[in-house]
């Protein structure tokens, strides 16, 4: 039985053979969407974070068949248009967050999902919801960028 889901606003179908493949490898290897990263494979580091029906989800920890009917977004689909990045991406660029950059797709996806649910997070809420690992230790800048993105998103709504 094949699996069908929406990926970055397009319909995707996976075969029966691919049903048990972790979504992470389906994205990276079958669809060549390399933005979602492999960091641990056991849901501990968050490098593989995607949006699953608007919520942050570690794609190494769900299979393709578990994506049936879901609305999935990866980092490649986060930007709002050809020339318009998502406010979280803009904030990341304003603060110049990354060092090696490997964890940052996952950080951006986790942050954007959190801001959907908590538009104006406190530092304590950021601590609770941003549990991705950054090996290079850019946490100070990530936090700054989240606050800037939250402010900018609030301005847009108003």
């Amino acid at each position: 039985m094949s699996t069908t889901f929406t990926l970055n606003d397009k319909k995707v179908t996976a075969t029966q053979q691919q049903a048990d493949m972790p979504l992470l490898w389906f994205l990276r290897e079958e669809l060549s969407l390399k933005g979602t990263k492999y960091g641990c494979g056991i849901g501990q580091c968050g490098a593989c974070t995607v949006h699953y029906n608007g919520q942050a989800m570690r794609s190494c920890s769900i299979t393709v068949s578990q994506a049936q009917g879901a609305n999935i977004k990866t980092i490649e689909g986060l930007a709002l248009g050809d020339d318009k990045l998502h406010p979280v991406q803009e904030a990341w660029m304003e603060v110049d967050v990354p060092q090696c950059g490997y964890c940052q797709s996952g950080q951006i996806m986790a942050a954007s999902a959190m801001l959907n649910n908590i538009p104006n997070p406190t530092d304590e809420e950021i601590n609770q919801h941003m549990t991705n690992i950054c090996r290079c230790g850019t946490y100070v800048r990530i936090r700054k960028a989240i606050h800037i993105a939250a402010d900018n998103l609030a301005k847009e709504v108003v």
Partner: protein
Amino acid sequence: MESIQLTRRQFLKTSVAGGAFVLSVNLPSVLANGAKQSSSWCVYVTINPNNTVTMSSPVMDMGQHMKTTGPMIIADELDLDWHLIEFTTDCPAYMKRDEDGNVTHAHADMGTGGSHAVRRNWDYMRRAGAIGKRMLVEEAAERWQVTPDSLTAKESVITHNATGRTFTYGQLAAKAGLRKIDESKVKLKERNDYHIMGKSAHTVDLKEMVTGKPLFGLDADYKNALQVVIHRAPALGASVANYDKDAALAIPGVVRVVEVARRTNDNNDKVQEVAGGIAVVATNLWAAMQGKAALNTKWKPNAEFENQSSEQQFEHFHDLVHNQSPTRVLEEDGNVEAALQQAAINLNETYETPLFAHACMEPFNCIADIRDGEATVVVGHQFPNAVAREVERLTGIDALKVEVISKRMGGGFGRRYINDFVTEAVLLSQQLKHPVKVTWTREDEIERDFFAPAYVMRIQAGTDEDGKLRAWHHTQAQTNWGAKAACFPKNLVENYKCDLFEDLSHIPIGPWRGPGHLQWAFASESMIDELAIILGKDPLQYRLDMLKPHKEFDYNGWGAEKIHSGRMAKCFEKAAQMAGWGRKMPEGHGLGIAGHFTFGSYSAFVVEVSVKNNAELRIEKAWGTIDCGFAINPNHIKNQMEGGFIDGLNAALFNKVNVEKGQAMNNNFHTLRWMKMAESPVEIESHIMQNDYAPMGVGEPPTAPAAAALTNAIFAACGKRVRRLPVADEFTI
């Protein structure tokens, strides 16, 4: 004045049209004996006829920002308009043979490690830019029939001062690129003429990173490459007892199952074990991973390595430093034994740091395509010339016929200096006569790490009645490899001895962000605090007094020639000032200070912690200074200060690998805890000292002070002295 001002949008549309003319620069390369010889063309900068520029990074990037810093140096001396530059994603590897026939970098020293990239390339890259500019200036001068001195080069335009006539670089590049110039006329800029360096530039491939572009080795595809996952022996020296080859081959997509021999690695100045195992070769990565699971491999332990356990080794190290005679004296000044006897006040403490994992965020990977007489390797490795040399060593192919396609590294920290993940891919490609891509799992990355050595460091210190340090004896036992010896307080105390016990373990060891420095600073900066406290002195003032008179000394350790007590003192003073050192702290809060000199740069940090119920720890804030000489890009230096310090805090808090019978037991992030947002200080304020010194590195210096700054702060907050890392063994956080 005619000049073409292009917006970024325009040049993205127009750079496709017209031929690009490479501004090739004939650069002298400096030989080991200091003599100069002409080298071949060097291509880091392409100036297009429409005046846009494409630049490649002359140095590998593992998050230490060299991909931005290198081009800044060249672009400034070349007087390019930074906004007209587009940056390529890869890092071209130009190699040559030196006079001894060894394969080395042909132009910029593109390797990264030891915080040396800026230091080693500072003169070269400035000169490259200045020579390029001279070629453009001379070309313009010839066309206008004026003297070069009557021209000004600025932001990709040459102006004739008297008439205001202009040429863009794009108009000149083609002919300029062919000129031979008089190199004696090439002048480097004065610092106050810099228009790019000294200012905060953003990362050049920032947009690619935040949009998830495939920048890393793990993202790379290669035509026809087979995907390989290796089931590696988890314990040192273990061999395959049996495995189910057929079960693996039955997985759709798996095409071969081959044994990988156990071998040794010796690019680390030491011959060390590399696990053997079973390679599962497949048409896709997931099939290879499933094939590995299906193998159900059983391993035969190796009796030779059964005693390789980190806890037992700690016990052994403690016994050594307390009861045995060290095997080697590294540094000796005066007579430390006599001075300790005569000291009015003695303090004798032992400090312990465990095996640190590297845990590079991107697990290792390598694509190797070994062909007849030539090869291609796609990899993120700290030293691309070492990759080419390794291919030659293994296959006999001339290293200069090896194309190394270098990728951005998802973390290096010294681990991506080891060749092992290249060697196995090369051998497999050779064996299978096929391009292969080998991908590591996180478990592989930790189990097969070349860890930072564990240390047990005993310090015996003696002072006068008034607290002046008279004797310092620093004895170390560590897993393997080397230890520091020439750091402060050497030169600050008349009677000084540093000795160690050697070759104590077979656990694989390798360089880890400032090798030995965090561990040294943990011991020595803790001991200095402990002395200050029993003497009733302020820890900051005690250090400042010890560092007087301000003087430059010769430095015997790797990575620097001189060490200056005044520069170290200024870092302490400034960090303390930023933190409001000496202010009354809220109940349960404390400030701790520590500083260290690493590879030419000085760094000091103050940390504020709070401790509740004597057991619940929170890191509130940190303030740090760095003296790295001239600050080429303050933004990135500050990012390194924040990240480097957090790496050191993580090492102090959590980073401990347990090896039992030669096997690393905590092999993923559920058992190897790693610092996250919640444990990180909310803010780290950093300050870069301003002076006239040449630029030095920043990748490692901020890490070394972190452990002692933390434990000194913990003591100030609650009176508990931590002498054994990880801190999380004694505190919850």
